[in-house]
C-alpha cells in the first residue's frame, strides 16, 4: 500500500509541468533571440554572405565553429544512453532523457547552421541531384541524417511507457497535449510482448548509434583533415574531435542536470551521487581530451615546420594566444584540478565546471576553424585589407546566438511536453529496491 502511494508521489513529481512566469520569460527571451537571428538571416539571404565578415581567406567562420560545436554536443546522446546502457551502468538511467533531448536539439541546429553557411542555400537540392560520394560533405549529410533519426528513435521508444502514464492525466495535460500523446503512443499497451520488442529495439539502436556517432564527428573532423592546411592536416583529428565531443556533451548534460534539478526540485531523483559519478566521467574525458591536445600540438611545436610555424606561434603567443590558453585552461586543465577533489564533484561546483567545459569547448571550436585559415601557404596579397583579419559581424553573432537559443528552445519545449526523468524506469527501480 505504502509502495503504491510512493509510486503516485514519483509520478506527480516527474510529470511535465506548465511554465510558470519565469519559464515564460525564459521562453520569451529565447524566442526573441531567435527572431533577431531570423532577421539577420533574412539580411544574409537578401545581400549574400557579404553581410558576414568572412572573406576569401577566412572563408569559414563561426557558423562552421558552431556546426562543429553542435555536432560535438549531440554525441552525448550516444554516450549516456548507449555506452552507459551497453556497459551496464545503472546510475545513468535518470540522465538518459536529458542526454537524448540535448542530442536531438543539437543535431537539428547542426543541420540548420550548415545550411545557413551555404552561399546558395536555394540550391540545397543539388546535393541530392548531383551528390558526389567522394566528397566528405556528402558523407556528413548521410551520417548526420542517420544520426538524427536514430537519436529521435532513442528519445521516442523509451518514452512510450511514460506516454501511457501521461495519458492517465488528461485534465493535467490539457486536451491538445493529450491528443498529441495519444497520437504518439496510444498503441502502447505495456504488454510483455511489447515490452520485449521495445527492449530489443532500444538495444539494437544503442548498438547502431555508437558507430554512427563516431562517424559523424570523425567525418566532421575530416572536413578539415582532408585539406592540406597547417593545423588541419592531422591524422589525429578524428580521435581528437571525438574526445572533445564526449567532453563537451558530458559537460552540457551536467549543466542541464543542475538546472532541471533546481528548477523542478528534482533533488530526490538527480542526487549528489549522480553529480559525483558524472564528475568522475567528466574528469576521465578531460584527461582523454588533454591527451589528444598534447598529441595535436606538441609534435608540430617540437618540429616547427616552416608552413606550420606561423599558425602555431599565433596560437601559443600571438593574436590567438589569449583565446587559446583560455580554452585550454578553462575547458580542460581547471576542470581536471577541480574534479579531482570530492568537494569539486558536488552539484554547484559541478555546474560551474560544466559551464567552463562548454564555454571552453566553444572557443576551442573557434580556434580549430579560424587561425588555420589566416595562415595559408601563399601570402595574403592583392586582396582588400579586411580579408586579412576576421571578427564576426553582428549578423554572424546574431545567427550563431539564435542557433544556440534555438537548441535550448527545443530542449525547453521537449521538457515541457515530456518527463525529464523517465517515470516508468524510476518506478521499476523503486519497486526493485523495495522488494
Amino acid at each position, binding site marked *: 500500500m505504502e509502495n503504491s502511494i510512493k509510486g503516485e508521489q514519483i509520478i506527480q513529481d516527474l510529470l511535465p509541468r506548465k511554465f510558470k512566469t519565469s519559464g515564460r520569460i525564459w521562453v520569451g527571451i529565447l524566442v526573441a533571440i531567435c527572431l533577431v537571428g531570423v532577421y539577420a538571416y533574412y539580411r544574409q539571404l537578401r545581400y549574400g554572405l557579404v553581410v558576414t565578415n568572412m572573406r576569401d*581567406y577566412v572563408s569559414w567562420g563561426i557558423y562552421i565553429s558552431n556546426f562543429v560545436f553542435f555536432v560535438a554536443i549531440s554525441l552525448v546522446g550516444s554516450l549516456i544512453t548507449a555506452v552507459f546502457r551497453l556497459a551496464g551502468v545503472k546510475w545513468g538511467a535518470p540522465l538518459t532523457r536529458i542526454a537524448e533531448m540535448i542530442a536531438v536539439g543539437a543535431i537539428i541546429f547542426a543541420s540548420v547552421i550548415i545550411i545557413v553557411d551555404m552561399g546558395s542555400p536555394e540550391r540545397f537540392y*543539388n546535393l541530392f541531384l548531383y551528390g558526389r560520394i567522394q*566528397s566528405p560533405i556528402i558523407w556528413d549529410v548521410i551520417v548526420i541524417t542517420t544520426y538524427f533519426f536514430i537519436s529521435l528513435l532513442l528519445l521516442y521508444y523509451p518514452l512510450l511507457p511514460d506516454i501511457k502514464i501521461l495519458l492517465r492525466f488528461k485534465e493535467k495535460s490539457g486536451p491538445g497535449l493529450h491528443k498529441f500523446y495519444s497520437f504518439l503512443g496510444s498503441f502502447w499497451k505495456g504488454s510483455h510482448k511489447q515490452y520485449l520488442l521495445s527492449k530489443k529495439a532500444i538495444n539494437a539502436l544503442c548498438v547502431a548509434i555508437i558507430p554512427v556517432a563516431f562517424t559523424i564527428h570523425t567525418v566532421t573532423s575530416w572536413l578539415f583533415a582532408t585539406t592540406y592546411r597547417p593545423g588541419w592536416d592531422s591524422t589525429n583529428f578524428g580521435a581528437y574531435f571525438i574526445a572533445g565531443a564526449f567532453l563537451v556533451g558530458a559537460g552540457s548534460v551536467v549543466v542541464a542536470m543542475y538546472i532541471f534539478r533546481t528548477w523542478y526540485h528534482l533533488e530526490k531523483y538527480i542526487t549528489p551521487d549522480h553529480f559525483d559519478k558524472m564528475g568522475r566521467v567528466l574528469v576521465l574525458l578531460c584527461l582523454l581530451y588533454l591527451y589528444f591536445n598534447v598529441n595535436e600540438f606538441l609534435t608540430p611545436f617540437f618540429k616547427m615546420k616552416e608552413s606550420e610555424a606561423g599558425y602555431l606561434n599565433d596560437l601559443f603567443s600571438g593574436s590567438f594566444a589569449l583565446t587559446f590558453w583560455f580554452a585550454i585552461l578553462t575547458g580542460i586543465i581547471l576542470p581536471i584540478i577541480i574534479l579531482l577533489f570530492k568537494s569539486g564533484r558536488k552539484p554547484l561546483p559541478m555546474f560551474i565546471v560544466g559551464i567552463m567545459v562548454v564555454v571552453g569547448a566553444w572557443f576551442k571550436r573557434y580556434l580549430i576553424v579560424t587561425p588555420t585559415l589566416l595562415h595559408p601557404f601563399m601570402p595574403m*596579397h592583392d586582396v582588400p585589407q579586411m580579408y586579412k583579419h576576421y571578427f564576426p559581424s553582428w549578423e554572424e553573432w546574431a545567427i550563431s546566438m539564435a542557433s544556440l537559443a534555438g537548441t535550448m528552445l527545443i530542449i525547453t519545449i521537449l521538457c515541457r511536453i515530456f518527463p525529464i526523468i523517465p517515470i516508468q524506469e524510476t518506478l521499476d527501480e523503486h519497486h526493485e529496491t523495495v522488494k
Partner: protein
Amino acid sequence: MEPENNSRRDFLLAGLVAAGLTTGCNPKKDPFEAGADGVQASGKKVKLLSVDGDVIEVDEAFLKPVPHLPDVSNAEARIGIPGKKFVMVIDLSRCKNLKKCQSACNFAHDLNPGHNWIKVNPMKGAEHTAPYWEPTTCMHCDEPPCVKVCPVDATFKRQDGIVLIDSDRCIGCRFCMAACPYSTRVFNWGEPDLPAAVANQPYSAETSIPQKKGTVGKCDFCADMTRMGMLPHCVSACPNGTFFYGDLNEDSVTNGADTFRFSDLIKDKAGYRLMEDLGTKPSVYYLPPAGRNFPFESGLENDKTQNS
C-alpha cells in the same frame, strides 16, 4: 556579254557568302535568292576571298556579323577539347609586377574590384635569398583537391586539363576554397556589380561569365579563348612576355612573341611547379627568377595600390 557575265557571277557569289554568313546551313532557305530578307544593295563593295581562292567583291549590305563559333553548352564545356593538354609557363625573371595580367583578366571576366583571379605575390624564400614577384593563376592541377571535395560536381576537371566551375550548380559551401593550397579561389560574397547586359546572359563555364552571388570563381585558363585557338588574356596582356601558354601534347608554348618547345624551355631554365610535395600535379610551371630583366624593387611602387 562578258561584263554582264562577271557581274552575274559576282552576284551569285555574293549571295552565297551572304547566305552562308547569315543563315548558316538552313536548308529551307535558297542561298541564291538574294534580297529574300529584304536586303538592298548599298553599292559599297567589300573585297573577300572566295571558296575557290579568288578575290571577289561583295556588296556590304549582304554581309552580317556572326559569332566565330557556336556557343558552347555547359555540357560540352565539361568535356573539353579532345587531344589537348594545356599548360602554362610563367617566367619569373620577366615579371616586374606591372599587374597588366591582372587588370586584363579582371576586365575580360567582368570581375569586381578585389576579386583578383591573378595575384602577383612578393616572394622571399628565406632571410638571405632574393625576393621576386610571383604571379599566380589557378594551377589547373591534374590531381585537383578542389574537385575532390566538391559535393555537387560543380567544379570539374576536363580532358584537356582545365579545371572549371559551373556557377549554375555551385551551392557555395566553400569546401574547395579550404581545400585549395594555392588560395586561388575567390568567392562572390555579395551580388557582383555587373552591367545588366552581362548579368542577364546565361552562365558559361568557359567564359566564367557572369559571376553570381554565393558561388565560387577562379582563373579558367580562358577556356573560351583557348577553344578559338587564341591566347589567354593574361598572356597577351603582359608586355614583358612573362606568361607562356600552349599544349603539352604539341610540346610548344608561346607568349605571343616567342614560341618555345615546352620540354626544352623547362629543361634549359630548370622549370618547376609550386608545392610539388603535395602531389597536386599543377599544369602551371615556373621558371626561376635567374638572370632577371628587372630589379625586384621596380615592382614595389605598383604594389601599393592594393596592398597598403
